[in-house]
């Protein structure tokens, strides 16, 4: 695709994006002044944000299409330290992802935020929602460590306040605290990584020039320090991306936030972390060691498999989606890890294939996860229910939402013709086409990884069969669900658009790969655009036609024709369709309690993969007659599934902090004279040391 660069019109893409960032920031600062006209304000405010996001989307989309790189300098900030801004295909790609999703979510928010009016002041959302989007775009635009971290913090802090929005629930407060702690541990690690890269850049400590990415890029790092910088960056960005075992905050914080924010956090914010890893490893450090790729691959596989397993056993719809985000980030990391390995071995074409798969999946995940979270938000809005055990039968009341949610579920389960299939298929191709490498370890790891990825894909499909089946099909399990109602128009449009995009991304993969070819060539110096569309736009052939090819348009045509034939044959005869309750075998009188529920659906997976969870299963039987166990009365079954990593990794740290706190408390006497004596003793000791 050769999009006409806006530069010919005399406007720089960067300036357009910066303008929309300014508009978003302005929205955030103006929001508090409208707190007494909430309804009018919401109808006006979110469309403005949607517009700003769309402008930013359009500019970055065109910039990636034409593959240009723009540097820009904003003379603001600390003296002698202007903000360096750079729009290159990599940042442009992620800005496209973030602002496209923000555009959809902002449309959705018009209706969604109105549901809070009267229950809670909406000014918190109104202030921090645009700041959050602006923070993400600022992070992606930054070309020096300071501006990057500034954007990063704006993003972290504003999302913290958004997670905390429904603060009357103590669980949400706990989730927000956990989130902000993890976010700052991660930010610290990123800061240290930048410091390592800047300090060894050879520019010296006197000027701030070492902190620009340009200086870091051109610096020569010793293998040891490059490794340290990579590891710190990977930990920091990994904490934000929610890779196992740094994922614990994610299933707490994402569900706690209002659903539009959850959609942005899962769909867009996690991608900024992916961007960070790509930027540091490929662009700045040039993947100089093999173990980086291996580490990323292994962590990615672990996240994918653990994420999906936890998603399967989850009963809370939004938590399920959050765990599925962990899984999808894992899949993206797998692609990136493969790309890094191939890059190290100088196999540009394969590396380009793997990195394209990862980027494609990042884009896809933003679309369908945003869509699914918005769907969950609609369900929450209609039924006030997040627990799937109390849902069911929503397809009758919420036709639109169900259809759109189904599209999202199909996409995320990697079923053609939707987009999830394309990117996962590309990742598989990268696995399958890897030739035997010189490293024995890798020859073992890569087939194993492919197998694990296949398992993940299947389990994820099963998780979404459960999510859709239990919540939308069958009979309503609670009164709220039986009285559910469809969402307002703005919410439906906000969900419908990404569903359409999901389909388009699935049907026209070659065009998308063409569009993002500039990003792939920036990262690995090669693209698969040429071979991918070697057989016309309708066929996707990653490397060569004899190896593998996929034609989504043909497939879509096939599916449509089958559907049409089925429809015609069914409706050809009149009275051919009877609506009867299925599964009642003629007995009649099925109650909602006789259905498969969420826990029972997940039972097989829970049995097979039991050792991954901390399960607490209790069965309580009330005896009908006190002394005869022959006549049991009511039975109560309860199940608690918890993350093993919490007990393994986090509890020891928390305990250690408390122990240290207790020790320190012994120094605290509450007597001011003792405190003064401490300082006095310190002064004397310091003076003695001078002697």
């Amino acid at each position: 695709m050769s999009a006409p660069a806006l530069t010919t019109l005399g406007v720089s893409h960067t300036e357009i994006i910066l303008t929309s960032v300014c508009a978003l920031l302005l929205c955030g600062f103006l929001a508090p002044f409208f707190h007494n006209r909430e309804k009018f304000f919401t109808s006006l405010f979110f469309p403005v944000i949607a517009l700003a996001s769309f402008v930013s989307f359009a500019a970055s989309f065109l910039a990636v299409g034409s593959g240009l790189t723009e540097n820009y300098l904003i003379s603001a900030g600390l003296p002698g330290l202007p903000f360096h801004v750079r729009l290159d295909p990599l940042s442009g790609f992620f800005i496209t992802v973030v602002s496209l999703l923000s555009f959809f979510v902002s449309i959705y928010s018009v209706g969604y935020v109105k549901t809070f009016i009267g229950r809670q002041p909406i000014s918190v959302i109104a202030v921090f929602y645009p700041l959050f989007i602006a923070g993400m775009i600022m992070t992606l635009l930054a070309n020096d460590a300071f501006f990057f971290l500034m954007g990063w913090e704006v993003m972290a802090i504003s999302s913290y306040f958004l997670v905390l929005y429904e603060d009357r629930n103590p669980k949400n407060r706990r989730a927000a605290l956990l989130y902000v702690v993890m976010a700052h541990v991660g930010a610290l690690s990123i800061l240290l990584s930048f410091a390592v890269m800047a300090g060894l850049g050879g520019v010296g400590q006197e000027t701030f020039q070492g902190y620009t990415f340009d200086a870091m890029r051109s610096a020569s790092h010793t293998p040891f320090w490059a490794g340290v910088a990579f590891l710190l960056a990977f930990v920091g960005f990994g904490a934000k991306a929610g890779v196992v075992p740094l994922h614990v905050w994610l299933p707490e914080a994402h569900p706690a936030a209002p659903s539009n924010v959850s959609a942005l956090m899962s769909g867009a914010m996690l991608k900024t972390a992916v961007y960070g890893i790509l930027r540091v490893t490929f662009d700045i450090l040039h993947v100089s060691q093999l173990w980086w790729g291996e580490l990323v691959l292994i962590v990615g596989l672990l996240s994918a498999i653990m994420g999906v397993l936890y998603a399967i056993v989850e009963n809370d719809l939004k938590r399920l989606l959050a765990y599925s985000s962990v899984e999808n980030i894992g899949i993206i990391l797998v692609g990136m890890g493969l790309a890094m390995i191939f890059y190290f071995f100088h196999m540009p074409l394969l590396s380009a294939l793997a990195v394209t798969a990862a980027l494609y999946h990042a884009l896809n995940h933003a679309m369908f996860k945003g869509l699914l979270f918005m769907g969950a938000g609609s369900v929450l809005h209609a039924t006030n229910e997040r627990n799937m055990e109390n849902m069911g039968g929503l397809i009758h009341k919420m036709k639109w939402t169900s259809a759109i949610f189904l599209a999202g579920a199909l996409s995320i389960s990697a079923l053609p013709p939707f987009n999830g299939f394309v990117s996962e298929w590309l990742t598989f191709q990268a696995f399958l086409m890897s030739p035997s490498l010189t490293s024995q370890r890798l020859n073992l790891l890569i087939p194993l990884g492919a197998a694990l990825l296949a398992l993940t894909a299947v389990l994820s499909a099963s998780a979404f069969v459960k999510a859709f089946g239990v919540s939308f099909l069958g009979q309503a399990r609670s009164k709220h669900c039986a009285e559910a109602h469809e969402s307002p128009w703005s919410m439906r449009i906000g969900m419908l658009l990404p569903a359409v995009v999901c389909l388009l991304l699935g049907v026209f993969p070659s065009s998308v790969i063409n569009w993002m070819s500039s990003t792939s060539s920036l990262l690995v110096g090669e693209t698969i655009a040429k071979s991918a569309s070697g057989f016309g736009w309708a066929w996707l052939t990653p490397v060569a036609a004899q190896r593998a090819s996929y034609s989504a348009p043909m497939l879509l045509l096939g599916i449509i024709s089958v559907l049409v034939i089925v429809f015609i044959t069914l409706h050809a005869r009149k009275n051919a369709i009877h609506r009867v309750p299925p599964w009642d075998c003629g007995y009649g009188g099925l109650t909602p309690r006789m259905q498969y529920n969420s826990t029972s659906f997940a039972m097989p997976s829970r049995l097979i993969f039991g050792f991954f969870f901390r399960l607490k299963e209790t069965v309580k039987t009330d005896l009908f007659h006190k002394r005869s166990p022959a006549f049991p009365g009511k039975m109560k079954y309860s199940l608690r599934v918890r993350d093993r990593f919490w007990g393994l990794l986090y509890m020891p740290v928390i305990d250690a902090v408390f122990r240290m706190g207790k020790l320190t408390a012994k120094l605290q006497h509450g007597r001011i004279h003792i405190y003064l004596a401490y300082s006095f003793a310190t002064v004397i000791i310091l003076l003695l040391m001078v002697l």
Partner: protein
Amino acid sequence: MTHGISIQLNNFLAAFILLTSFALLAQRRIYGLLVIFAWQGFFLSLSSAIVAYTADIRHLYVSAALTLLLKVIVLPYILYALINKLNIFREVEPLVNIPTTMLIGVALVIFSYHLTAPVRELSTLFTRTTLAVALSTVLLGFLMMITRKKAVTQVIGFLAMENGLFFAATSATYGMPLVVELGVALDILIAALIFGIFIFQIRTTFDTLDLTEMEKLKEDS
């Protein structure tokens, strides 16, 4: 005034400053403390003026005037008003008895002289000998803060420490830049005001000015 006389005069004033520091430790009456504190400020201001004259540094005159204004007139007056308002006429209550405190003080002075010996050898300023006195004044002020129970006496101890720092600045480098001096002077004034409010608050919360009562604020463990 010749150079020799200046040195003599300055040392003489330093001795007086040290004397007042010990007097602060020994004094049992609060009004007495105020008077001694004012005297210390007076000697300090005089000493700065002499240094200013001898070394011909203009801005030190301003410092000297500021010291005279703040530490001899304003601060003692604020504290005097405070004490009157709070009706504290009782004696100073030490935590450690006064003779022991004095002995510790003597040890601190010896320590200071020992500590500043290298500086005395290296420095070329005519005020170098008084640096030891300045350091002892700081340490003695600190000692006063530690060993006194009542909040007002601690405030005076704090201000005496500040006097010591000022004196140290004058004797080590002929005073700090004027901007810093002005800033510090403002700080001290603000600190005195805050202390006033703080003391009132302690009084209303605990019905006493005895700081040992603040132990109750600690959470039980």
